[in-house]
């Protein structure tokens, strides 16, 4: 079939957690293993990673029996929770790692962007890095030379093109990185999460560029947590869950199925199995819930009412100062706010083992209408170490009724804005001259 760009047949990938990769063993390896592994285990035990040391030979299927066909010119989104196998799938398709079983067939030149700026070197100038990065991504030198000015203009770094990269701001760095990547000219483009970079304006520019690529009849595979972007760019979406293909269909259908998975609501997620929960040796996430005042779990919130987001987590090691935090994104992927635990009772104090629930209250009349995605994380303070972060853990809708007592007032049309606070209004009136005279004459008459 000529119009199939990518075909997956029972594609599976197994990983040995903490152990080795080979499905086969040779004498040399066995020998080496028996020599090295006691030391490795000892080292791990000393670092307090007893769990890992025991599970040396445990395996997981990062991808399991995935079958599908993607036609030439299709723009396909791949979604799923962390660890669902999205990145593994892209890695196999871009030939970075081999599948354990099954195979994939690809027709056409592949360009894959699992990261932007791969191979950038801080000591080299912007110009030198464009050539180096282009070569790494598989561009020919002549091709880079031809597109050079375009790349520099896209990145908006004309003035700094001969400055070493280490003097670039992080924004300039990312813009340059994406600019090179965006000028790859593949027939099949695979993108992993690269749009989660840069400021909002540049993100939009990148999304537009992606849209262009899709409209040129190229095949695009796009992994992202940015549901609005996925829905906008992709006609078809594939949902992966624990390595399996769970759903494959039109974008809006699959995205809403994904957001509603679990409890039939997007407002609560639980991790009943601690082994699979986000976290490590210090703490593990157990649940995230969205509640209204009456402590109902709900995924629809009145814009005027406060809403509580709670994080339930288990502390496995006493003595750490912990800082739970929430990150909130709207449906455009804009980071609306970030909230770090300020509870005076527990701030700067070590917490003991056991189950904890931290709740933050978002006041009413603050959020804007639409879907809010909440990411939940936990950090130990001093030094700051990420214990876990679960993006898009829960989501809820903020609805603004037309009762007239919200910030909307009596206006029924579309209202933009990232927040919608209920602000105080004041009105002062100064009459115009003609009317003032009229009023004056009225007064005289009285």
């Amino acid at each position, binding site marked *: 079939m000529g119009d199939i760009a990518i075909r997956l047949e029972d594609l599976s990938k197994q990983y040995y957690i903490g152990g080795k990769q080979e499905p086969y063993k040779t004498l040399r390896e066995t020998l080496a293993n028996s020599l090295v592994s006691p030391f490795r285990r000892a080292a791990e035990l000393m670092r307090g990673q007893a769990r890992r040391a025991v599970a040396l030979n445990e395996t997981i299927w990062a991808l399991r029996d995935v079958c599908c066909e993607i036609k030439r010119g299709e723009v396909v989104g791949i979604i799923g929770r962390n660890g669902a196998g999205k990145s593994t799938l892209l890695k196999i398709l871009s030939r970075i790692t081999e599948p354990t079983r099954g*195979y994939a067939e690809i027709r056409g030149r592949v360009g894959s962007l699992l990261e932007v700026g791969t191979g950038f070197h801080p000591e080299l100038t912007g110009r030198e890095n464009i050539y180096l990065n282009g070569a790494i991504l598989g561009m020919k030198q002549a091709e880079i030379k031809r597109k050079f000015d375009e790349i520099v203009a896209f990145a908006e770094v004309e003035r700094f093109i001969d400055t070493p990269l280490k003097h670039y701001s992080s924004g300039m760095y990312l813009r340059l990185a994406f600019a090179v990547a965006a000028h790859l000219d593949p027939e099949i483009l695979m993108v992993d999460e690269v749009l989660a970079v840069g400021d909002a304006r540049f993100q939009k520019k990148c999304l537009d560029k992606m849209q262009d690529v899709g409209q040129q009849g190229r095949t695009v595979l796009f992994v992202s947590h940015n549901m609005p972007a996925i829905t906008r760019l992709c006609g078809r979406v594939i949902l992966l869950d624990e390595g399996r293909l769970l759903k494959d269909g039109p974008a809006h259908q699959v995205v809403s199925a994904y957001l509603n998975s679990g409890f039939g609501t997007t407002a609560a997620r639980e991790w009943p199995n601690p082994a699979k929960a986000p976290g490590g040796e210090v703490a593990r996430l157990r649940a995230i819930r969205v509640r209204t005042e009456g402590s109902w779990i709900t995924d629809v919130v009145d814009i005027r009412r406060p809403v509580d987001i709670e994080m339930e987590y288990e502390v496995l090691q006493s003595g750490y100062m912990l800082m739970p935090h929430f990150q909130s994104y709207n449906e455009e992927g804009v980071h609306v706010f970030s909230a770090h635990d300020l509870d005076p009772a527990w701030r700067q104090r070590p917490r003991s083992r056991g189950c904890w629930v931290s709740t933050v209250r978002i006041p009413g009349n603050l959020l804007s209408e639409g879907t809010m995605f909440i990411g939940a994380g936990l950090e130990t303070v001093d030094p700051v170490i990420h214990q876990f972060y679960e993006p898009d853990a829960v989501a809820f809708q903020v609805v603004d009724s037309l009762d007239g007592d919200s910030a909307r007032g009596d206006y029924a049309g579309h209202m933009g804005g990232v927040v919608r606070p209920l602000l105080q209004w004041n009105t002062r009136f100064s009459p115009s001259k003609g009317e003032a005279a009229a009023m004056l004459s009225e007064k005289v008459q009285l």
Partner: protein
Amino acid sequence: MSLRSDNVPALRIGPSNGWVSLKLHDLWEYRELLYFLAWRDIKVRYKQTVLGAAWAIIQPFFSMVVFSLFFGQLAKIPSDGVPYPIFSYTALVPWTFFANALNQASNSLVSDANLIRKVYFPRLVVPLAAVLSGIVDFVLAFLVLLGMMLYYGVSPTINLVWLPLFLVLALVTSLGVGLWLSAMNVEYRDFRYTVPFLTQLWLFATPIAYPSSLLPEPWRTLYGLNPMVGVVEGFRWALLGTATAPGPMTSVSVLIALALLVGGAFYFRRMEKTFADII
């Protein structure tokens, strides 16, 4: 509408087992990347150093000074009839290239781990670029050698035309050993500590401070099992006209070097598929 006609051959991605082909064609396709990586290594190596590329000369030159002092002056080690400083320096130039190449190549995959995890390209490019980037240093050190030959009044013989072949032999040896070490270093980082130790031992197992003519036959032929013996004595013969013309010893060195390279390349290709997962 379509960008390509329907007869594009499909690329099949599946599990591979055991020994796989070298895919030299693929390597050729990526020759520009090879060039850019080698160019990057050269460019970056001496940035933020005060002396810059002078390091390429300092290393062999001071070894030569120390060797001349202790082995030449004090121990009175014979030097095949040429002044001892030039005798040892002629050996130190290819040796320094080899030692640096081993060091660079064995760490190359690990220091480019980010590339390996995120982009596809024939992995052989990485250690290959690391070895090739040493050529610039070699050339600089070689210029000093020419200066020394002028100073000591040693005029090269017609043997000089063979010199490029001995440089190729040095390249083949470096790459052969470098491939083994780089692939093993991905899985067992122990090799990072082994390499300096290995090069130190290897230095004394190579006729740099002393001539191989100290050994009688058949031991001298057996000595060729160390391929750097062939390289070093070849350099001396080609440049200084010593009586170490290529013979059985050099042939043994050439065979061993080729075996190391071919074996290393296949071993590398075999281990390659797990690089991204374990690096």
